[in-house]
């Protein structure tokens, strides 16, 4: 009994001694939370890891707690974190969702930090999209242009040259869609689009066709412009591709990318992120990358980096240090190489990226072509209502295909519904 009591006393003294030594050390450790869906993404995930490493080296005693949240659950998780008053200090959001957070006042105005650090954002791709109520609330991390990838072997087998316009593209897609094993089920497709999933991706897939037809959801003043001959033509093209099953039906974007990489889809229009998937696919040696047959190519802002507004001033300074590293010339240059994507900074050196990614110049060209044409996936004037707008477009397009409706009538319905959404 006495021994037991003695051991308890000694244990208590030891714990007290340890705590007096350890507590100041613990107090010196500050943690910044950083939530991202890109953590495990090959290339871009490695780049974020290098930014974090640099930040922690420059700021001893400050750790970045990097957590992955799946893209599908991202908006819910971030909303819950912000609404619960525990937002991540470093805010990473998709460019189509940050507006809701900015509108709530949850994103810090970055203009004082930009000014004091002397960060030059002239020519920074897509940065104008980060303005919210006249203030920069974020830094654009990627503005991309779609590339066109095709399976050269499949096209050669059918005697088809890579298409350069819509007519050639659809003719090729028709010829390449077939049942190769004779079981009555088509198992090779001309092209591939997501037709199952969220409205945002559906809208992006559909825009490949509406942009080439000259259509836009809204004009530069934010006025809805869906009921136009150009948009009707774009919708008719989408209907032709999907209704005739020139794309596999009911697959997600990830599944279609994998099918393309494995040689089950002949042609694919997609962003720079397609290339790392191609490299892991069974058909990687058969795939070639070229300029899209559509003009202008789909492009736009992708994701943003910002700062939570409801955090202490000293923490804000640390978050800006993190943003400053990510936006530095060195790390923008690394971004091009590691992520094989077009860095938004005009000062990034892309020589290394060109050596590592054979089609890097093409990525730059398509991004510039999309930017020059003022293309973005988020329609002007519908930023706040984007999710609802995208869902409406998806449902009306599905209705057009399922009920075999005239694209002209569908465009009129979309116009009326989009105006109603905008007025809410």
């Amino acid at each position, binding site marked *: 009994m006495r021994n037991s009591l003695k051991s308890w006393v000694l244990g208590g003294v030891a714990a007290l001694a340890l705590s007096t030594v350890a507590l100041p050390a613990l107090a010196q450790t500050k943690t910044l939370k950083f939530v991202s869906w890109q953590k495990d993404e090959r290339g871009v995930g490695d780049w974020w890891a290098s930014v974090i490493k640099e930040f922690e080296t420059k700021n001893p005693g400050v750790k970045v707690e990097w957590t992955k949240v799946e893209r599908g659950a991202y*908006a*819910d998780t971030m*909303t819950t974190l*912000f*609404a*619960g*008053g525990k937002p991540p200090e470093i805010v990473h959001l998709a460019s189509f969702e940050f507006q*809701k957070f900015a509108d*709530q006042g949850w994103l810090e105005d970055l203009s004082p930090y930009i000014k004091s650090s002397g960060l030059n954002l002239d020519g920074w791709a897509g940065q104008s999209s980060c303005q919210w109520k006249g203030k920069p609330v974020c830094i654009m991390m990627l503005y991309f242009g779609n590339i066109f990838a095709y399976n050269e072997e499949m096209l050669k087998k059918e005697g088809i040259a890579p298409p350069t316009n819509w007519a050639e593209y659809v003719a090729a897609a028709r010829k390449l869609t077939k049942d190769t094993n004779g*079981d*009555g*089920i*088509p*198992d090779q*497709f001309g092209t591939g689009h997501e*037709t*199952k*999933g*969220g409205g945002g991706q559906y809208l992006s897939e559909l825009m490949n066709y509406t942009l080439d037809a000259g259509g836009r959801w809204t004009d530069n003043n934010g006025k809805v412009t869906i009921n136009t001959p150009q948009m009707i033509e774009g919708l008719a093209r989408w209907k032709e591709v999907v209704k005739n*099953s020139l794309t*596999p*039906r*009911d*697959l997600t974007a990830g599944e279609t990318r994998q099918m393309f990489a494995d040689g089950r889809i002949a042609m694919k229009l997609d962003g720079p992120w397609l290339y790392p998937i191609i490299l892991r696919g069974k058909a990687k040696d058969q795939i070639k990358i070229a300029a899209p047959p559509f003009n202008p190519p789909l492009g736009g802002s992708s994701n943003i980096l910002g700062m939570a507004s409801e955090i202490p001033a000293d923490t804000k300074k640390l978050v800006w240090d993190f943003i400053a590293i990510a936006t530095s010339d060195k790390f923008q240059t690394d971004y091009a190489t590691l992520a094989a994507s077009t860095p938004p900074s005009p000062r990034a050196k892309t020589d290394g990226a060109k050596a590592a990614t054979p089609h890097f110049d093409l990525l730059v060209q398509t991004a510039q072509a999309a930017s020059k044409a003022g293309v973005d996936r988020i329609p002007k004037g519908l930023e706040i209502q984007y*999710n*609802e707008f995208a*869902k409406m477009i*998806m*449902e009306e397009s*599905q*209705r057009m*295909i*399922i009920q075999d409706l005239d694209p002209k009538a569908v465009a009129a319905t979309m116009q009326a519904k989009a105006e109603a959404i905008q007025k809410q």
Partner: protein
Amino acid sequence: MAGGRFSLDLARPSRQHWLGYILLAPAVLLIAAIIIYPLFVSVDLSFQNVGIARLDQPRRPFTTANYERLFTSPDFWNACWVTLKLIVIVTSACCLLGLGTALLVNNRFKGRSLARLFVAMPWAVPEVIAVVIFAWIFDSSFGLMNWIFLSLGFIDKTINWFSDPTAAFAVVATTMVWKGYPFVSIMCLAGLQSIPDDYYAAARVDGANAWQRLIHITLPNLRPVLGVTTILVMLWIFRDFSIIYVLTGGGPLKATQTLSIMTYEQAFGFFRMGYASAIGVVTLIICVIAAKLMMSRAPENL
């Protein structure tokens, strides 16, 4: 100390019930914190025009606009109709299949333990895994079901299971039945084993055939179990989210959009938490009424 000012003599006959209250208090407080408080917040939010809700923000003015909008919204009535259809179809199928399999594995035969295991297996499979399996089975381009139907000559071209409203509803209902029937089966099996063998022996002596024994002995004795099970299955369908969300997301054309999917979409898709709370409150009321109605029709010993 015993006679101290703040002493609590639980041994006194007049205070013996206090111990019960004290022991219950933590559980009551916990329930209040995790059920009653959020429920209160939800009801409160449903009467405010709130986009993204925050507890530290001042309360917005009282309004009934969310409910007015809800009851005039065709989407809401569509969601009610889809939920009702799912409840009727899935509950009926689960009960029939569950009762049938329970009667089957209640008999003595070789391999009965294995059969019982197979009957209960879908219940043990996590919902998301079940959904992934069914998503593959019903894949429009490479799914097993299209291949089987084509091979058997039932169809001459593939069915786009998730692009057709009727087909998508059928897929969701099938998945829910597969996931839900083992629960009914297990409950019925437990109920069947509590029916005394004497009843059946007496019925046989009286010349009752198998059908008569089922109608006059088995089903009446199973009524309490079946009643409770039906209510639980019904409530499960009401609140189930993951099966529909992962399979169809409520589409196409809202053909599988139930009240729970609609609530989620309004809250986290469109950030209308006041409106979403109104849908949640109405769903709760419908659940309570439905459960109460079923309980009131159940026998006294339920």
